[in-house]
């Protein structure tokens, strides 16, 4: 098929979950997808507004792409769950980018709001297709195929995390390295997907973790039911879908299934700041036994060296706890693990 033009997708925010859905859609419609390279250096970050680092990176990536593409794809993510919503900053994101790029580039900013029912995602993509001059039939077919490839991607996800370098996590046809020997530590990494997988934000913490013999587990492993179970008895419903996922999976993993939990948050992330306080206090009030928890708050000044030290220290703690636990079990004492908290900023 003849190439119709280029669509730019900034390597930021929900790129780190939905690229395998977005990319095939545009490609099936005959558009070339161009993805930004990344900021790499602190000096290149554009400070259009005084927001969290992930938002600043969105602007940076979008500006990087604006002269190289025909359209920028920055959907207005209001909700990606049938009941719960996204952070309010996502609602204004396309407008912020429009101002930062000074209106020089066309922006595809269709609203994605899954609260409107099961068909709403298809409707959104039909509207996008219409803007790109595709017929309803074509768009529908492209969307179905994109959905198929996305679900295939999701099936491989758990394997991917441990067997691919972070930079290639979201590429489709890459050969996976052979299964390695099972790592001795199972560590859950919790946080917004962009905090976990954007190497500009976390300095490739996942690679570091792998080199420290950690097996990486994320909240994707848990079903929605398992997450809901942890948060259903709260006195008030947490209405951000990401916040629910974070709180639910943290409570789940802290009590079961892994040797340690690392919570990655961005400095100035409103949701994380509030819920982090909630998680810490609730663990204390309930006096629950828990595995070690490390909270890392990241911003553009975070250095790899500091992260390395923290993660190494954390590994030592996990190791000690594991030893202690196994000797306790051997002596058939009641296994009691104290909560360890290391805060790093």
């Amino acid at each position, binding site marked *: 098929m003849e190439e119709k033009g280029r669509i730019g997708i900034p390597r930021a925010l929900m790129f780190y979950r939905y690229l395998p859905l977005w990319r095939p859609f545009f490609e099936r419609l005959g558009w070339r997808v161009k993805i930004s390279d990344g900021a790499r250096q602190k000096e290149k970050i554009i400070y*259009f*507004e*005084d*927001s969290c680092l992930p938002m600043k990176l969105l602007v940076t990536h979008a500006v990087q792409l604006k002269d190289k593409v025909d359209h920028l794809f920055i959907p*207005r993510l*209001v909700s990606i769950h049938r009941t719960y*919503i*996204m*952070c*309010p*900053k996502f*609602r*204004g994101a*396309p*407008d*912020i980018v429009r*101002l930062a790029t000074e209106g020089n580039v066309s922006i595809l*900013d269709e*609203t994605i709001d899954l609260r409107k029912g099961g068909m709403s995602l298809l409707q959104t993509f039909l509207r996008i297709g219409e803007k790109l001059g595709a017929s309803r039939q074509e768009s529908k077919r492209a969307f179905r195929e994109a959905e198929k490839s996305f679900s295939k991607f999701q099936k491989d996800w758990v394997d991917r995390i441990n067997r691919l370098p972070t930079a290639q996590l979201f590429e489709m046809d890459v050969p996976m390295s052979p299964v390695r020997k099972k790592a001795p530590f199972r560590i859950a990494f919790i946080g917004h997907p962009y905090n976990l997988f954007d190497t500009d934000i976390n300095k490739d913490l996942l690679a570091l973790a792998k080199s420290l013999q950690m097996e990486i587990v994320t909240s994707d492993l848990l079903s929605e039911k398992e997450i809901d179970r942890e948060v259903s008895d*709260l*006195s*008030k419903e*947490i*209405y*951000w879908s990401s916040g629910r996922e974070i709180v639910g999976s943290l409570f789940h993993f802290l009590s079961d299934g892994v040797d340690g939990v690392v919570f990655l948050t961005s*400095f*100035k*992330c*409103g*949701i*994380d*700041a*509030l*819920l*982090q*306080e*909630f998680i810490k*206090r*609730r663990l*204390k*009030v309930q006096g629950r036994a828990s595995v070690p928890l490390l909270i890392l708050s990241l911003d553009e000044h975070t250095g790899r060296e500091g992260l390395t030290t923290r993660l190494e220290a954390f590994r030592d703690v996990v190791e000690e706890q594991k030893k202690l636990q196994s000797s306790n079990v051997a002596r058939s004492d009641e296994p009691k693990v104290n909560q360890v908290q290391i805060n790093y900023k």
Partner: protein
Amino acid sequence: MKVTFPRLGSMHIFCKAIAETAGIPYILPPETSRKTLTLGVLHSNECICLPFKIILGNFIEALQMGADTIVMVGSGPPCRLGLYDLVQKVILEDMGLHYRWLTIPPRFSWKALWKNHEETKDLRKELSARNVLFFPYGLWMGWKKMMACEALERLAMKVRPMELKKGETQKRLKKALSLVDEAKTQKTVEEAIQNGKTLLQEMEQDRSRIPFRVAIVGELYTVMDPHINRGVEQKLGELGVEVTRTSWFSTHILRSLRKNKADRASERVRFFEASKAYLGYDVGAECNISIGEAILRAQEGYDGIVHLMPFACMPETTASGILTKVGRDRDIPILTLILDEQEIEGRIQTLLEAFVEMLEWKRKAA
């Protein structure tokens, strides 16, 4: 049972009037002070917004004074205000403070009513027949007093730039508000309003001055509470500026009762419509209103905008990015003040003085 509630501007007069009229025992948290803030900061983290810390501080102080039941206004998504109670409850519990909690639902719904019913089950047993009987009258009284306070504050904003003796308006306003606060019956409230108004109007004024007109926009807590914004309203007034704001306690109560939705011509609807030039969606809280108000005020010939927000506030961060652009496009000076627990009163004074000086140059150049 001893009820307590957060302090916000002159809202405590409203709450106090309800409790007093209905005969419910209450404890008024001490006026928000450095100590309040320190308590709030100590028991939360740096990226949680300032209103959270202040409300938490209010509650801690009130509980330490012997209150046992907290009444908190609820709010809904997408802003963090809606989850304040969830987190504050755990924090208070962790501190070893005992309390009972009642959240007033932000929007009427059956689910909220049920939750409210569950929460109030024990509380209602402690209420006497008199409490229940007088409650509607208390509400009416509170509303009346609140409207009175707001009218007086509006009047003060108008006369402050004309005052001959600096600080005189503030002194008289304080007196007038306490008159309203102390009034017990319908008749005395009416009298208090009249007396308060005359008190402000009779102040010595220089009527020849032409004050600058500045609108204050932004997150509602920082706009409404002089302790949180370090008296921006008063400071601007004393620099010769007539301040306007559309965020009042009553505005937000009416909004949550969905009262001003019907009135299509209401100011907030106009602001929201105007914000569409820059924002394609309702971001939530006051974000769209802040932007829309700035746009319309520029059209109406205002001299400047002061935008207030707490540090790390989610909707207003988006607004501040866009407002920079609005200011440039519409040629209106916009000063954004980001507030947190730091002692910045002096800095705010300097910033406001510079801002007003800039307005003076602008006027001279025109």
